[in-house]
């Protein structure tokens, strides 16, 4: 195993496992709410899911920021490996968490949120609701037909993934700056993340590029996220020090 994958494995063990436990716990709790409080489940699911879905997408960039601790880097920096390996292994660990969050949230949307909404609709129209995922599929011919029809729910998850990807890029850039400039403190780094993210959102709002669900905005997010990552990586490798 190369140094890079060894570091990645360590990062995943340190941060990733905790996050995955958190993810599993979150969906398990939601599942319990869904299956045990049948009358209140719509309200519960709506309240907890919308807020918590956002949170699970915010946590990976936050964990990435936490993994860059200047006071604990002496060993990593003195080992015979490139700085880029340290940087990328951490980034990749956070990205893995993001992808895990995406798959979990997507499955949650498809299996729980969509059937729940249709169940609610049935109740309003005919007074009885008994829709679940497996009963619905035949009405849409197949699984993919079902997904296509209800893709807007899935899309919210996808949008969160792309926003989080940009967030991850910004965090990696500001972390690099902390290793370049001694006076660029953790507080300033966090503040910069917030300012950059809001500025990007504002630019998006005031430009023809649609912010939200279109393919264009996803491509722009992808490019922005990768650009921030590339700059961060370059600065860390070339100028990063303790």
């Amino acid at each position, binding site marked *: *195993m190369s*140094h890079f994958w*060894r570091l990645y494995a*360590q990062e995943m*063990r*340190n941060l990733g496992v905790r996050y995955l436990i958190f993810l599993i716990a979150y969906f398990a709790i939601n599942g319990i709410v869904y299956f045990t409080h049948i009358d209140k489940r719509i309200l519960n699911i709506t309240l907890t899911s919308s807020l918590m879905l956002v949170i699970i997408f915010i946590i990976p960039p936050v964990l990435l920021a936490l993994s860059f601790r200047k*006071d*604990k*880097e*002496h*060993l990593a*920096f*003195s*080992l*015979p*490996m*490139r700085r880029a390996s340290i940087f990328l292994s951490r980034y990749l660990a956070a990205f893995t968490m993001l992808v895990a969050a995406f798959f979990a949230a997507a499955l949650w949307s498809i299996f729980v949120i969509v059937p729940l909404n249709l169940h609610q609709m049935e109740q309003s129209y005919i007074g009885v609701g008994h829709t679940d995922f497996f009963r619905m599929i035949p009405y849409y011919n197949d699984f993919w037909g079902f997904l296509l029809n209800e893709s807007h729910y899935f899309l919210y998850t996808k949008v969160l993934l792309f926003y989080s990807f940009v967030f991850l890029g910004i965090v990696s850039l500001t972390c690099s700056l902390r290793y370049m400039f*001694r*006076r660029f403190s953790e507080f300033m780094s966090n503040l910069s993340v917030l300012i950059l993210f809001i500025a990007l959102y504002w630019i998006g709002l005031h430009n023809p590029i649609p912010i939200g669900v279109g393919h264009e905005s996803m491509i722009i997010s992808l490019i922005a996220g990768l650009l921030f990552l590339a700059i961060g990586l370059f600065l860390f490798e070339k*100028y990063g*020090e*303790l």
Partner: protein
Amino acid sequence: MLVEARDVAKKYPGKWALDGVTFSADQGKVLGVLGENGAGKSTLFRIISGITRPTRGTVAIAGMPVSLETRKIVAYLPDINPFYEWMRVMEQMEFLASFYPEWDMNKTSELLAFLDVSPNDRIGELSRGQQAKLKMVYAFSWPSRLVLMDEPLGGIDPPTRKKVISTLFHEFRYGEQGIFICTHLVSEVEEFIEDVLYMKKGKIVLSDQADLLREKKGKSLTGIFEEIAEGRMRDEG
């Protein structure tokens, strides 16, 4: 020549931590780098280890400029606990071993047993003394050419200190390896120091062979250290 530093300087916002440091050190010797807090000793070690970049000047180790290649032959032990706190002792050692092809796991086990450090303990739960011992295991489980020890005895009790020092000088490969040691507890390691650098405010104020200095000044290294700290000695570097 093991280490050659020329006009090394490091500027931090508002101050020069190192200012024009020039010295050379031979292989196989123990160099004591002595000075008060803020003298620039740690900064010098960090530059030699490659974790900090100098603002000016060059450092060469075994003829190579500080780079990825020199990090393959230098063991840097900072004054803090550098290990991953969430790892167990043996896991950490295995992780480190994977970076150095010549790491000897038998030696690691032997040193852990001698120093009474349990391989299954979590690093975050080790005392300062145990952490100091672990640094020794890291330093001597593989044949590094240079060991940089920044305050290896800081904050540990006398019996542990004794054990750390005995490991240090028992495992030191005389003639093959170099040790740079920076400590405030000069008297504890005085007998082992062969060459000495005294630093003050980022500059070398005195450097020579320890025996010659003792003879010339008529006092111990500790005495000379105190004299320099009190400002009674003029720049003789």
